[in-house]
């Protein structure tokens, strides 16, 4: 097996190098596929060389993945993680965007709140787990709180920075045409900041998805993070651990894709050119 795999690795790396030099299809489809196959081959090679039930091979991982999919575990644990992320994220967006808009636009609000925001920002959401469990118990409440905390700062700070970057000509145009109050926010401040707000939502959702897994591993009794811990503790099922990791990655990609869809609207596309 191992000489065969080694041969496969060599052939594939040569193929990948060859494809890299070709046209667009080669660059965006074939070359990435070749790299993926190469990684799988190295994985296969390594696990057959150091064979052990704590080193699941790609095939073992695939069958564990099937096991999760076939049982109700996939649905139950993904739903638990997604539920916490969705609510924490939505609450953070609903509070962080208005706060960021207001603080970004008001010099005084900015000066008053910025030190607090910058001071809390470097504290890892994971560090809040003891208090989160104390306040909300083991369960969805603590998860939603942690995700809210994890996404709130990227969203607020990103929105704040976006507002402070609004160009002088747009501010002056707004002044010139007599916009003020809510109308100023609706017609100028919010749309001008929106491209960067969407970027900060993307960052926040990425962070949220990282945090929920860690939080569920430490202090929750359901979710994909819990599933990883459970698989390891109950009979060292490292194939299930690896399968769950792949699942977490796949869901993360889908979440990012959904937020990126927002970047294609006419109202914000201007913000992503020449950057």
């Amino acid at each position, binding site marked *: 097996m191992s000489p065969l795999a080694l041969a496969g690795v060599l052939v594939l790396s040569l193929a990948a190098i060859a494809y890299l030099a070709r046209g667009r299809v080669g660059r965006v489809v074939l070359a990435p596929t070749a790299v993926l196959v190469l990684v799988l081959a190295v994985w296969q090679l390594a696990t057959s060389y150091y064979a052990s039930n704590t080193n699941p091979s790609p095939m073992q991982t695939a069958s564990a993945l099937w096991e999760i999919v076939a049982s109700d575990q996939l649905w139950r644990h993904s739903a638990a993680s997604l539920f916490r992320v969705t609510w924490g994220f939505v609450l953070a967006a609903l509070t962080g965007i208005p706060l960021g808009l207001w603080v970004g636009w008001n010099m005084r609000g900015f000066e008053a709140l910025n030190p607090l925001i910058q001071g809390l920002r470097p504290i890892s959401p994971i560090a809040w787990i003891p208090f989160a469990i104390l306040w909300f118990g083991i369960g969805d409440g603590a998860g939603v709180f942690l995700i809210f905390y994890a996404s709130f700062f990227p969203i607020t700070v990103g929105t704040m920075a976006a507002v402070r970057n609004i160009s002088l000509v747009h501010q002056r145009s707004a002044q010139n045409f007599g916009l003020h109050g809510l109308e100023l926010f609706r017609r100028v401040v919010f749309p001008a900041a*929106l491209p960067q707000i969407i970027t900060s939502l993307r960052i926040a959702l990425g962070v949220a998805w990282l945090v929920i897994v860690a939080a569920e591993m430490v202090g929750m009794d359901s979710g994909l993070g819990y599933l990883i811990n459970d698989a390891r503790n109950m009979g060292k099922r490292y194939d299930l651990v690896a399968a769950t990791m792949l699942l977490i990655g796949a869901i993360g990609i889908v979440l990012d894709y959904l937020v990126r869809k927002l970047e294609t609207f006419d109202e914000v596309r201007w913000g992503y050119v020449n950057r």
Partner: protein
Amino acid sequence: MSQHETKVLFEGISKSFKKRDEELQVLDSIDLAVAEGEFVCLLGPSGCGKSTLLNIAGGFERPDQGRVTIDGDEVDGPNARRVFVFQEYGIFPWASVWDNVCLGLRKLPKAEQARIAQATIELVGLEGFEKAYPMELSGGMKQRVEVARALAVAPDVIFMDEPFGALDSLTRLTMRAELIRIWKASKPTILFVTHDVDESIQLADRVVVLSGRPGTIADIVPIELSHPRDQSGPEYGAIKRRLFDALGVTEVA
């Protein structure tokens, strides 16, 4: 200029900025009267304070001394009846051409908005692009949108701060001719800042030449040629020489 009724009056305008503990005077006692419906170019080298003078008239900056009055009322802030056209595209990239042009009309009934917006868009030659977003337009077309946004509110005064500065030279020529056509149609008072001598001769009723820092008025040159102005004529050449003299540039090809 049949009636010399004063529209914009600058009285003893001085302004300085602080730059690292250094007081930098950019304008020194500027007095100038601009008549109703007049097209005045403020011409000067960069850094002479011509944009600052325009920003003061537009209400975006306050003078240290002196005051600007429009129709006898002191300017104390921006006003929707006096519209600024910026060099770096003040139109909103997140809104369509139509919505940009409607910005100053937002308090009117929808039907009225549509009538004025349509007419203004036609006046600047943008029909067919109502639904386009600024990023889909060329620099010249973006500047037409901005001019349309200004014209839609039927302003008394239009302040233009090197509005064609970012355009290529051919587009700039077309835009000047278009601006004269539009100005003749509704006769707003226009204050136009430029550092381009030819631009000022092609556009203005009067060219106000500002000297280098601190900016003072070096010369005021009336241009009585009819539009379109013949650049090869002897009067044109004489005016050009006078403007270069006032700017302190002696060698001209």
